């Protein structure tokens, strides 16, 4: 293949980022994906569509809820909002992710070799 294969995120990473973004303010799908891309400075290559299965999973787990509303560009959109359970889940996920990252970083740290 000519293009480099986009590196997969680990399972649950996208959900974590969605929850974190929604924690700041409720928003609809398109805004959400633009926000994530912008915040990551386009370092993460996210297929825009992959957002939707993730949102469905979060809806099923009751971590977010959705309501139809009108966007700033005056469109009919579904606006997603973090629930209390979603907030707790985010905290747990973030702290476990940080532990994991710390571990990986320590192993990868130069100097010991």
């Amino acid at each position, binding site marked *: 293949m000519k293009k480099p294969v986009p590196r997969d995120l680990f399972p649950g990473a996208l959900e974590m980022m969605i929850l974190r973004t929604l924690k700041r303010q409720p928003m609809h799908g*398109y805004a959400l*994906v633009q926000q994530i891309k912008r915040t990551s400075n386009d370092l993460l290559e996210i297929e*825009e*569509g992959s957002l*939707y*299965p993730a949102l*469905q*999973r979060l809806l099923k787990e009751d971590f977010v809820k959705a309501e139809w509303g009108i966007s700033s560009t005056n469109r009919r*959109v579904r606006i997603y909002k973090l629930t209390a359970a979603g907030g707790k889940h985010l905290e747990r996920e973030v702290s476990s992710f940080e532990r994991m990252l710390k571990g990986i970083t320590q192993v990868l740290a130069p100097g010991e070799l």
Partner: protein
Amino acid sequence: MYRELSEEIQAHLDEKVEELVAEGMPREEAKRAARRQFGNVPLIEEKSRDVWAWPSVEDLFADVRFGLRALSHSRVFTAVALLTIAIGIAANAAVFSVVNSVLLKPLNYPNAEQLVALHQVAPGAEGLADFENGLLLSPSMYVTYSDHNQTFQSLGVWTTGTANVTGMAEPEQVRTVAVSDGVFQTLGVPPAVGRWFSQIDQEPNGPSRVMLSYGYWERRFGGDRTVIGRNIVVDSQSREIVGVMPQGFRFVDSDFDLTTPLAFNRGKLILAGFGFHGIARLKPGATIAEANADLSRMLPIWMDSWSNGPGSNPHIYETWKITPMIQSLKQQVIGNIGELLWVVMGTIGVVMLIACANVTNLWLVRVEARQQELAVRTALGAGRARIVRGLLVESVMLGIMGGLVGVGLAYAGVRFLVAVGPSNLPRLNEISIDGRTLAFTFVLSVLAGLLFGLIPALKYAAPRTASALQSAGRTISVSRERHRARNLLVIGQVAMALVLLMCAGLMIRTFGALRKVDPGFADPEHLQIMRISIPGSLIAGSELVMRTQNAILDKLAAINGVKSAGFISEMPMEGFDSDWDQIYAEDRVYADNAIPPLRLYKHISPGLLQAAGTKLVAGREMTWSEVYGLQPVVMVSENLAREMWGTPAAAIGKRLREYPKMPWHEVVGVIQDVRENGLQEKAPETVYWPALMENAFGPGPAEATRTATFVIRSDRAGTESFLNEIHTAVWSVNSNLPLASVRTMQEVYDKSVARTSFTVVMLGIAGTMALTLGIIGIYGVMSYTVSQRNREIGIRLALGAQGGDVLQMVLRQGTKLALLGVAIGVGAAFGLTRLMTNLLYGVSAHDPLTFVVVAALLILVAVLACYIPARRATLVDPIIALRYE
């Protein structure tokens, strides 16, 4: 909800396009870019939906669709596999429906689990002890138990008999059941019309009442409901009809036409008279053990409350060691048939296993042929679990289809089973395919599908994508490892077939041994028998009864083609309740109160021995003049003579009697032993009294044998014209005499071996199926092996091997498998045939002859099954075989 998702995604794309256009991109290009960045829309929609769906179910449907398609592609394979499975399942479903109806289903009474049979044994009462019914109840026992028990809601006694119904067209002999109070209450089945007997109907001098069975009501009265209150004449006594029992109602295991009240006279009861079956309904929560204890407690009360007349010692029965052994009523009805049915069920189950082994083999070959397809699916991303599931779904579907066909066949199978089943099979009329049988069949079908699908699925689902795809498998010789499963299956099949054939062989040997047993009568095919009963109300005087019977014999003997005729109180194996009593010998000294052993006794007419073909061992037959003259003569069986006096000849001139005041009777003849209770049972020691004797209880008129089986020897026995002439002959003597149980002795004989012949037929069928399936199995595997080794054999031949060498090589391989199977089978059979010891007669469960013959047969057949593929192997043309290289 799915529509919301599509709408949302569309809105997303629109927004993106708007933004890109706003940035200056042409609209068309913007649309493409938006889509590109979004990804595969339908896939994402599907993935989003999957979050909510139950994906495995949808996949399963896909597997089912795929499986059906795969099965319909290979029609021959599907047909063969389907047929094998269907036959196996049909056989199992049919036998299970019998097991279920006879053994598992509760009896046809309300709360049947509370019903018990008041069975008791008396090891001290020799002769009665080996009696199937144990020690029956006497009327006084019934009264005691009824009055003093603490564990029963109700209890009663009943007995079967026959009666003559007159006054309606031809006289008819009908089957009767006489019941005490409590029997209907215990069984709890309300009458279809009218009412049960009341307390008043059970008064000894109360009104004469009768109840009808549904069948008799339909047959005689056309189901007329106004029959209640009408009178019919039963044994010359007018009785008022008070009720009709519903269709299908039986007294425990007895069909009947009429039922009458026993109407015991409490004031005149004595201790003895052990002739009644007791049944009872337990109080809720009461156990059989408690009920047994209850009966044991009441036995002394019984002995204290009644006597056998002045001067007799009521506690004499303590020496009988009467012990209650209450059984559930169901157990009583089923009797010992349970063991037989389970053996049949087991063997049919083994046939099913063999059938599964065959289909497994087919399936292995088929899955192997589909290796490439499976490899492609694996390459396309199907996981191992998914492939295993796909294959299993396919095999289970085949199993279920086999089950559907099998249920259809099972209906025919059940009809067959009922037809060949022993005619005395309990609950025969209840056998049917019900919900439980269908559920069993369904489970069996699924299990069978899993069983034959699992090995191939696990074996071939393993990822071996690369090799399968690149080589297409053509020129690689098959590895030993790939044959292992198939060889193991063949060995297993041979072993199982051997076990079944061994069982069948032992049953055939049993049947042969039974056929050689001398039953005590000869040439039963030409022996016409029938029951004639002369009630006191018809002919009062005993001597007149004897003269009437004598006249009947003379008329019968005069019929064209009759060689001889006689009568006896009952012929062996007829199944009528037999009479037992203590027999005293003059040359024995009996201690005070000691009871001599109980002996079976019968009354016979002169000429009976000749007619029945029963051999006289010593002495002579009694004569008519001795009978009419009330001469004290008697005959005994050979085993009784040997037991008491050593030899038959020594018995002649010795004297016997039944009770103290009876005159001593001189033994004038000794008769060969007669298998009274069936060919398998030891002949009981028997005393033969004359048909006419002095009154048992002191002076008074003589006693005749009012109910007797007439025996006629003729080559015409059983023919229609002969029976008509017999009727005419009997009615020319007295037109009020009905004939009952008219049959040839052959029918009685066949009935007594029915259990064995049923087992022989069933095991024969199972054995034949097993053998056939086994041959197909070996043949199939050897053929396949040879076809796979075509190239190897080609090379061997090219290198100079002779045809004979190749033949030997293939035969050796097949024989090795067969021998291994036989060895394992012999080991298994050695353990398993012991389970059927009770079904065998005259042959050991480890009969060496059967073992050797069956093993040899199986090896021979296996070698033959290998021979055809082996022949084919020698015909391999090396040039053609190697051309593919």
